[in-house]
């Protein structure tokens, strides 16, 4: 057994299925991820590949049942999160592990003031008085670029623009100084100009607070901008993991290549957009062998029969594919 190193979060062989009336859905099929402090790990995949289940299971917010953890462990600061009592998980959530969601308009409570939504966490987790909490909230509004604005604090979500809402949500997430931040497609619902600002903000958080950040996205263009390391997930399995540079310059897995080719590129103007044929398999019936083989241009007979093992190709670059040498 390896004793905990400086990994902030270590997910080992996490395997989760959802038990439904029409059969089990295998949402995560043994994934491995590690995040250290001051590092941004991007988790990339199409819709339905298991990104959100991953983040929700770190938060302990996957309801069991219907979900069932078949195997694996979630070590946060060296301690197991799976099987923790609800009350203990509640003290970790929002306090040590916080989360930013995709659509701030939907994920903020429409009938509570921004200030209330931030201060309630400070009061609950850090035992602050209302007055202290308000002061602290103002500081964090400043950190996320909204200024020490009491107007924002007293505003309801619908009174803020989309970008301001997302900043407010980030302020909410980081106000208790969490060491791990889960950002689930935090820029997807925003305009392109705002996306860049939010990405800069997230990068500055990593530097200022040396947070570990799990950045979930389906957009490789954004991931390339922000991630230190990247893991690509497909049908509940990590198919390739590498440093940012290695993943984009020395792509190993055919799925990653296919994703890269499907990024619209201004230089390739006039060409047809390359999309990956087919779609992510349902978690209820994942193909035999390599789950990507029905959509893979390189697939051989072996791919349809045998699940490829994850192999290490040096420098922390790993991939699970029969066709990679």
């Amino acid at each position, binding site marked *: 057994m390896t004793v905990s190193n400086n990994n902030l979060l270590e997910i080992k062989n996490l395997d989760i299925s959802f038990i439904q009336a029409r059969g089990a859905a295998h949402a995560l099929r043994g994934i491995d991820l590690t995040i250290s402090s001051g590092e941004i790990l991007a988790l990339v995949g199409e819709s339905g590949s298991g990104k959100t289940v991953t983040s929700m299971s770190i*938060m302990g*917010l996957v309801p069991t049942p219907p979900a069932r953890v078949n195997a694996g462990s979630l070590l946060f600061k060296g301690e197991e999160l799976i099987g923790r009592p609800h009350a203990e998980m*509640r*003290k*970790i*959530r*929002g*306090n040590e592990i*916080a*989360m930013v*969601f995709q*659509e701030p308009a*939907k*994920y*903020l*409570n*429409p*009938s*509570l*003031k921004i200030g209330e939504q931030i201060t*309630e*966490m400070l009061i*609950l*987790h850090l035992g602050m008085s209302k007055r202290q909490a308000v002061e602290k909230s103002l500081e964090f509004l400043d950190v996320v670029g909204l200024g020490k604005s009491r107007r924002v604090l007293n505003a*309801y979500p*619908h*009174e803020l623009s989309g970008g301001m809402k997302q900043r407010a*949500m980030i302020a*909410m997430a980081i106000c208790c100084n969490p060491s791990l931040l889960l950002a689930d497609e935090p820029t997807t619902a925003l305009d392109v100009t705002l996306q860049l600002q939010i990405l800069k903000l997230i990068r500055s958080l990593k530097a200022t607070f040396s947070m570990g950040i799990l950045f979930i996205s389906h957009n490789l263009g954004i991931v390339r901008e922000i991630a230190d390391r990247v893991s690509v997930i497909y049908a509940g399995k990590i198919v390739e993991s590498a440093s940012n540079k290695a993943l984009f310059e020395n792509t190993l897995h055919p799925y990653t290549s296919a994703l890269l080719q499907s990024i619209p590129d201004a230089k390739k103007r006039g060409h047809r957009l390359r999309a990956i044929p087919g779609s992510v398999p349902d978690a209820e019936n994942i193909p035999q062998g390599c789950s990507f083989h029905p959509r893979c241009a390189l697939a051989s007979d072996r791919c349809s029969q045998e699940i490829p093992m994850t192999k290490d190709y040096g420098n922390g670059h790993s991939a699970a594919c029969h066709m990679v040498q």
Partner: protein
Amino acid sequence: MIPGDPALTIAGVDAAESDIQAIRAKLGTDKPMLNQYLEWIWDVFRFDFGTSLTSGRPVSDLIMERFPLTLTLAVLGILLSIVIAIPLGVISAVRRWSFWDYLGMLFSQAGMAIPSFWLGILLLMLLSIKYRVFPLFGSGSINHLILPSISLGIARAAVLLRLTRASMVEELSKEYVITARAKGLTERMVNYKHALRNALLPVITIAGIQLGYMLGGAIIIEQVFSLPGLGRLFLFAVYQRDFPLIQGGVVFVAFVFSFINFAVDILYSVLNPKIRIS
């Protein structure tokens, strides 16, 4: 239009034709229909609802005499239904398919199926005749209004309970609830501070409309408990072809209904920041 002539009712069966004509002239019912209507409208704009044909007293006095009882009854009824419906509806939604949820469903099914007059009669038989906890009939004290408001409130509570449950279930499935949980809030805070606040909006609208209906008088319940409320006043006005009183009653009920709706809209804007006037 309506069969029956108030002049005949007043004069009696054996009255001479000339007397009847005289009464008609006095009441103004000998004039053409359109004239009568326009005169009435003109009076209404001057807040003059005319005089009751049977009692000879101003319609507005008659209505105002009866209104406090109806108002108390309606407010008690709606309060009772809110007190039953909201907590039980919320528990049903938070603990779906639990004992409380089944109890709530049983209550709302029964409450909607049972006619309120029948419930009123049962309550009277049990609590006024057998156990003598409440007075059998009459009015004047709050004790006289308890059983009628229960009879009225149960059916409303049944509707509000279903609405509260449905609304709360819907709110609990919204994204901001995930955020609230991700913030590490206790389930109590998630349910009552975050979800309930939003879930109550439709409940308040419907409760307001129900209050409006009840303020028009509860004809059947007032009969069962022999309460001198608006319902009975209007019912007898119809029996006796007391046209000014009927017309005044309709205007009054319409006004009260609009006023309640307006009040609900104001309340709504207090609860829902999105429609607050800046």
